[in-house]
C-alpha cells in the first residue's frame, strides 16, 4: 500500500519544530559543533594533501595537468578549441642560459601567458607582466646573480643560447628593462626569466632566417579533474587528429603528463595510515554528536509522548511518527550544517599552517584545499550522525501505545519501592529523582565525562612529549650547516655547500671541534650479486639495462656514499666492527650504513658483505640513456618505457674496499636519503681517492664549548643563513627544540579545540537535561510547593540534582582516566619513542569548579524562569 502522505507528515514535523524552541536551539548548536569538527578535520586533511601536491609541483616547476609540446601555430589553435581542455596556458621558450652566473641552476628565457605564469608559481611582488618588446621579469635571486637591484626600470642585459642550440652563432644578447620581479623559490628547478610575446615573435623570425627550427611553443593544460590524465591527453590528441607515436608523421604532437599527479598517487589517494586516525576521529565525533542529539530528542519525545500517542490514536502509523521526528531533525540540519561547514572550513584553514609546520612540507607550499569533497564528506557524516541519533527516539515515538500515552507520566517503570523511615529529605528526593530516569542520567554522565576524559588524554599526550629525550636522540652535534636542499631532501642531488660560506661562519663563531661531511657529484655505485639486484628491482621497478654493467652475474647499483671527517665519525653511537679504521686513508675501508635494532641486529639482507669482507665500489661521472626504438636520447625519461631504454656508464672506475663496520648513522648527520643497494660511509680521504674532484662538501657540523658560545653561534648562523637568501640552512639544538615545541603545540591546539567543542556539547547536554527535567516537572514542582515545600527547598533540591550530575560525571571521568591513563601511556611510548609516560589530575582541578558552578547555576536559572508564574497557574497548566 503506497499512499501519498509525505506532505502531511512534513507539515506536522514543521509545525512541531516551531513549538519547541529550546530544543531546537540546543540541537542546532550541537549540529553546528559536530559539523565544525567534521569539516575542520576534512579541511586540514585535504589541505595537507593539497600542500604536499603543491610542494611537488613547485619542484617540477608547474602545476598544470599536462603539456602538449613543440606545437605549430595551427596545432595550437586546434588544441585551444578542444572542449575537454578546461583551461590552458601558452609558453614559448626563447632559450636557456646555463653559463655564468646560472651554472648551478639554469635560467630559462621564455614568454608565458598569464595562466602559464600563474601555474609556474610566478606571483609578482611588484610590477606587471612583460608587454612591451624589451620588458622582462625574473625572480630576486636571478637579479642578485646578475648583480642587479630589484628596481623597476633597471636595464638588464641577457645573454643566452637560442632554443637548445649550442653553436656560438645561436647565442643572443639583448638588453631589457625590468618591469616586475617576484620572490625566489629555491624549490623551483630553474630561474624563469620571462619576456614579452612580441620579443619571442620577432626572435622566431630571426631564428627561421638562420635556418634553425622555430622556437618551441608548449601548451600547458588543465582538465576538469586530475584523474587518468594519460587517457585524457590521448583522447584530446585523437580528437584533434594528432598522433604521439609516429615521430616522423606530419601530425606528430608529443605530450607529457605532470608527474606530480602520479607521484602523489593520482591526487586523491590517501593511505591507510592517514585514513585510520581520520576514521577514528570521525567516529569519536559521531559518538559525541550522537550523545547530545539523541539525548535532546529522547527527552523531547518523552515530554511530548502524549502528543505522539494522540497522533497514533487518530491513525498515524509507526513509520509516519518516525518520519515526523526525523524530519524535524533534518529541518534543523538545514540551518545547522551549512553554518557548521562554513565555520569548520574557516577553522580548518586557520589550523592547517600549524599542522603543516610540523611536517616536512614547507610553509610556502601551503594550499588550502577547496575540494568539494570536504563539504560533501562532512555534510554526509553530519547527516549520518543526526539520522543515527534520532532513529531511536523516532522508534520510541512510533512504538508508543496510544492508551498508555493518554496517561503517560515519565517514570523509570521499575516497580521496586524502597522503604524509608526518615521521611522526605531534600537531598534524598534529589537522588530519587535521578533514579526515576536512569537512562537519561547515565547519558548525561557519559556525555559530560567524555569531554573530561578526552581533555585528560590530550593533556597526558601532549605533556608526555619529552623534548630532552627527543633532542638527545635527534641531535648529534650542536650545529649542522648545509645547503637548503640537504635539510629538505626532495629526491634531487644536493647542491654543494660553498666553502667560503663555511669559512665565514668558522671565522665568526667559537667552535670546539667540527668537521665536514661530503657527498658525491656524479654516480656512486656499488657492485652487488644477481640475487640482491633482483630483490631491489622488485622495490624500484627500474629495468633499464646497462651495456657496460659489472658482468659475471654482478650488477652495479646506484648508492649513497657519504664521506666523513674524523669529528663526525666520533659521533657514531650504534656501530658494529671498527669504525676507527675509516680514518686510515691507505686502507680503503668502508662502513655499511644500516639500521641497527634495539637488540643490536643490523637490518641487512643475507647477501650483504660481512665485516672484513670485500666490497667493490664504483663511480661513474654520468650515464647516457638511449631509446632503443629511435636510437636517440629520450626527451622525457619519466614518460618513457624503461624496457625500451639502454644505458651506458661514462667514466667508470672501480675500487675494492674492505667492510670494516656496520653503522647506524644518526639522521641529523646522515645522508638523509637512501637506495635499495648498500649505502656506505667512508673516511673523507678515502672517498676523495675514489671520486676525486667529484667529492663535494654536503654539510659542516660542529660543537661549541660552552652555552654562551652556543647562543652566540646560534645568533651568528641564524643571521648568515637569513642573508644567504635561502641557500644556506642550519639545524641546531635550539632549532630542533623549537621544531619540537611546534610539534607539541600543534597537538595542544588541535586537542584543545577538540576538548572545547566536546566540552560545549557536554555542557549543552547537561543544560538541556536539567532544563527539560525542570520544565516537564512543572506541575509536579508546583504540587510540591502547594503541599508545603518552600521555593528555597525546591531550588535546593534542583541544585543538588545538578551537582550530582556534574560531580558524578567528574568521578566517572576520573575513574576512567585512572584506568585508561596507563594504557594511553603504554600506547604512546610504543608509538612515539620521545614520549615519557606520566599521570596528572590537573585538568580535573581546572574543570571541576566550572562544572560545579554550572551544576548549581543552570537549575537555579531554569527554576527562576519557571517560578514567575503562580503555583495555581502552574498546577492548572497541562504539560
Amino acid at each position, binding site marked *: *500500500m503506497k*499512499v*501519498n*502522505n509525505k*506532505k*502531511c*507528515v512534513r*507539515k*506536522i514535523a514543521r*509545525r*512541531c519544530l*516551531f*513549538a519547541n524552541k529550546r530544543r531546537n536551539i540546543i540541537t542546532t548548536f550541537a549540529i553546528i559543533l559536530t559539523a565544525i569538527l567534521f569539516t575542520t578535520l576534512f579541511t586540514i586533511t585535504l589541505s595537507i594533501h593539497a600542500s604536499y601536491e603543491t610542494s611537488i609541483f613547485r619542484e617540477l616547476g608547474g602545476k598544470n595537468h599536462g603539456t602538449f609540446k613543440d606545437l605549430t601555430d595551427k596545432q595550437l589553435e586546434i588544441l585551444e578549441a578542444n572542449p575537454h581542455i578546461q583551461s590552458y596556458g601558452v609558453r614559448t621558450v626563447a632559450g636557456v642560459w646555463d653559463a655564468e652566473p646560472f651554472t648551478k641552476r639554469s635560467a630559462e628565457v621564455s614568454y608565458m601567458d598569464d595562466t602559464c605564469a600563474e601555474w609556474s608559481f610566478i606571483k609578482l611582488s611588484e610590477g606587471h607582466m612583460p608587454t612591451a618588446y624589451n620588458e622582462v621579469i625574473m625572480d630576486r635571486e636571478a637579479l642578485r646573480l646578475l648583480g642587479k637591484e630589484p628596481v623597476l626600470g633597471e636595464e638588464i642585459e641577457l645573454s643566452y643560447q637560442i632554443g637548445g642550440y649550442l653553436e656560438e652563432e645561436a647565442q643572443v644578447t639583448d638588453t631589457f628593462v625590468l618591469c616586475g620581479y617576484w620572490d625566489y623559490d629555491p624549490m623551483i628547478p630553474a630561474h624563469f626569466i620571462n619576456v614579452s610575446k612580441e620579443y619571442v615573435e620577432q626572435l622566431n623570425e630571426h631564428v627561421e632566417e638562420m635556418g634553425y627550427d622555430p622556437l618551441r611553443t608548449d601548451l600547458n593544460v588543465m582538465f576538469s579533474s586530475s584523474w587518468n590524465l594519460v587517457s585524457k591527453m590521448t583522447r584530446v590528441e585523437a580528437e584533434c587528429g594528432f598522433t604521439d607515436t609516429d615521430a616522423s608523421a606530419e601530425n606528430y604532437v608529443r605530450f607529457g603528463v605532470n608527474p606530480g599527479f602520479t607521484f602523489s598517487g593520482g591526487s586523491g589517494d590517501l593511505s591507510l595510515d592517514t585514513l585510520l586516525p581520520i576514521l577514528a576521529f570521525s567516529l569519536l565525533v559521531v559518538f559525541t554528536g550522537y550523545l547530545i542529539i539523541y539525548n535532546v530528542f529522547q527527552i523531547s519525545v518523552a515530554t511530548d509522548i502524549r*502528543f505522539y500517542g*494522540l*497522533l*497514533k*490514536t*487518530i*491513525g*498515524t*502509523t*509507526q*513509520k*509516519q511518527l518516525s518520519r515526523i521526528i526525523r524530519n524535524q531533525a533534518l529541518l534543523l540540519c538545514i540551518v545547522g550544517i551549512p553554518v557548521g561547514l562554513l565555520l569548520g572550513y574557516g577553522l580548518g584553514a586557520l589550523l592547517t599552517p600549524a599542522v603543516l609546520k610540523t611536517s616536512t612540507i614547507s610553509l610556502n607550499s601551503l594550499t588550502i584545499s577547496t575540494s568539494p569533497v570536504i563539504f560533501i564528506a562532512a555534510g554526509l557524516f553530519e547527516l549520518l550522525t543526526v539520522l543515527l541519533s534520532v532513529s531511536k527516539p523516532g522508534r520510541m515515538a512510533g512504538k508508543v*501505545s*496510544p*492508551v498508555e500515552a*493518554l496517561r503517560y507520566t515519565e517514570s523509570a517503570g521499575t516497580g521496586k519501592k524502597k522503604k524509608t523511615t526518615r521521611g522526605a529529605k531534600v537531598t534524598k528526593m534529589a537522588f530519587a529523582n535521578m533514579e526515576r530516569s536512569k537512562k537519561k542520567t547515565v547519558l548525561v554522565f557519559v556525555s559530560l565525562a567524555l569531554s573530561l576524559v578526552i581533555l585528560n588524554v590530550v593533556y597526558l599526550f601532549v605533556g608526555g612529549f619529552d623534548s630532552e629525550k627527543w633532542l638527545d636522540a635527534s641531535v648529534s652535534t650542536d650545529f649542522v650547516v648545509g645547503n637548503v636542499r640537504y635539510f629538505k631532501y626532495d629526491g634531487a642531488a644536493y647542491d654543494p655547500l660553498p666553502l667560503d660560506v663555511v669559512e665565514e661562519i668558522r671565522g665568526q663563531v667559537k667552535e670546539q671541534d667540527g668537521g665536514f661531511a661530503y657527498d658525491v657529484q656524479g654516480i656512486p655505485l656499488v657492485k652487488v650479486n644477481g640475487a640482491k639486484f633482483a630483490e631491489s628491482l622488485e622495490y624500484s621497478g627500474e629495468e633499464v639495462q646497462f651495456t657496460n654493467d659489472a658482468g659475471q652475474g654482478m650488477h652495479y647499483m646506484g648508492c649513497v656514499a657519504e664521506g666523513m671527517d674524523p669529528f663526525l665519525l666520533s659521533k657514531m653511537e650504534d656501530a658494529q666492527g671498527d669504525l676507527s679504521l675509516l680514518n686510515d686513508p691507505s686502507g680503503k675501508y668502508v662502513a655499511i650504513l644500516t639500521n641497527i635494532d634495539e637488540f643490536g641486529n643490523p637490518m641487512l639482507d643475507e647477501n650483504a658483505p660481512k665485516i672484513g669482507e670485500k666490497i667493490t665500489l664504483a663511480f661513474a661521472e654520468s650515464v647516457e640513456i638511449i631509446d632503443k626504438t629511435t636510437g636517440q636520447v629520450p626527451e622525457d625519461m619519466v614518460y618513457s618505457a624503461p624496457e625500451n631504454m639502454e644505458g651506458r656508464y661514462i667514466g667508470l672506475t672501480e675500487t675494492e674496499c674492505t667492510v670494516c663496520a656496520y653503522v647506524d648513522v644518526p639522521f641529523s648527520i646522515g645522508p638523509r636519503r637512501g637506495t635499495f643497494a648498500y649505502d656506505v660511509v667512508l673516511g673523507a680521504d678515502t672517498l676523495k681517492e675514489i671520486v676525486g674532484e667529484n667529492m663535494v662538501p654536503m654539510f659542516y657540523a660542529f660543537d661549541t664549548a660552552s652555552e654562551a658560545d652556543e647562543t652566540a653561534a646560534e645568533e651568528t648562523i641564524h643571521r648568515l643563513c637569513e642573508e644567504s637568501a635561502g641557500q644556506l640552512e642550519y639545524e641546531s639544538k635550539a632549532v630542533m627544540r623549537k621544531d619540537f615545541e611546534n610539534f607539541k603545540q600543534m597537538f595542544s591546539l588541535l586537542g584543545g579545540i577538540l576538548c572545547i567543542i566536546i566540552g560545549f556539547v557536554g555542557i549543552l547536554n547537561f543544560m538541556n537535561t536539567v532544563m527539560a527535567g525542570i520544565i516537564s516537572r512543572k506541575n509536579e514542582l508546583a504540587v510540591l510547593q502547594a503541599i508545603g515545600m518552600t521555593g528555597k527547598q525546591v531550588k535546593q533540591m534542583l541544585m543538588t540534582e545538578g551537582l550530582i550530575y556534574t560531580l558524578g560525571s567528574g568521578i566517572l571521568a576520573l575513574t576512567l582516566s585512572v584506568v585508561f591513563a596507563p594504557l594511553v601511556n603504554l600506547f604512546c611510548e610504543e608509538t612515539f619513542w620521545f614520549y615519557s609516560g606520566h599521570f596528572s589530575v590537573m585538568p580535573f582541578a581546572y574543570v571541576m569548579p566550572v562544572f560545579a558552578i554550572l551544576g548549581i547555576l543552570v537549575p537555579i536559572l531554569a527554576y527562576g524562569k519557571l517560578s514567575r508564574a503562580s503555583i495555581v497557574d502552574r498546577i492548572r497548566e497541562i504539560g
Partner: protein
Amino acid sequence: MSILQAKNLRKIYGQGENQVKALDGVNLEVEKGEFVAIVGTSGSGKSTLLHMLGGLDRPTSGEVIVDGKNTFALKDDELTIFRRRKIGFVFQAYNLVPVLNVYENIVLPMELDGEKIDTAYVDEILDTLMLSSKKEALPNQLSGGQQQRVAIARALATRPAIILADEPTGNLDSKTGQDVLSLLKVSAEKFTQTIVMITHNDEIAQLADRIVRIEDGKIVSEREGR
C-alpha cells in the same frame, strides 16, 4: 446488520493475587446507525471496553469485529491504518493536535491516508457543527466546547464505520455538554453514523438509542434510551 461486534472480550491485568479482570467476557453488538451509550462507575471497565472496541489496546482473549473485519487479527501498523479509516475518536480531553489549525486537525486522518480531501463534505460538517468561522483558528484559541466540536468533526470527516466517544462532555460544563452532545447526535443522524459513547452521566446517556450498563467488567443491563 451489526457494524460492530464484541465477542467474549476479556482483559486481565497482572497475575495471581494481583490479578484484575478489567473486562470479563463482554458480548456486545451495535447496529449501523445506532447510538449506544455505555455507562458505569469509574473502574467498571467501560474505558477499557472502549479501547478494545477502538483497537487501541489488545484484549487478553475474545475478538472485535468492525465492519466485518476481525481487528485483532491485524498487525500493529495495519490496525493503525484500519483505525484511521474505520473508527473516529472523540476524547474527553479533546486531544487536538496543538500545532495544527481547526481545518488541518479535521482533515489530518485523511491526509495521513493520502486521500483526496472531499472539501464539500468537510465544509458541510463544519457548517453542521457551527465551526465554519473558526477554520483557521488554533486549538488554544478555542473554548472547550468548540474544541470538542472540532474533535467530533475530525471523527466524522473520514466517514468511519463507527465513532467512539470517551466521556465527550467530561471536561465541559453541563450546558455546553448538552449542546455538544446534541450536535453530535444531530450530525450522526445527518451523516448516518454509528456512535458508541461511554459516560458516567445518566442524564447524558438518556440521549442514546440504547444504554448499556457495565459493572466489574461485565454487562449488567441493557435498555432503550428515550
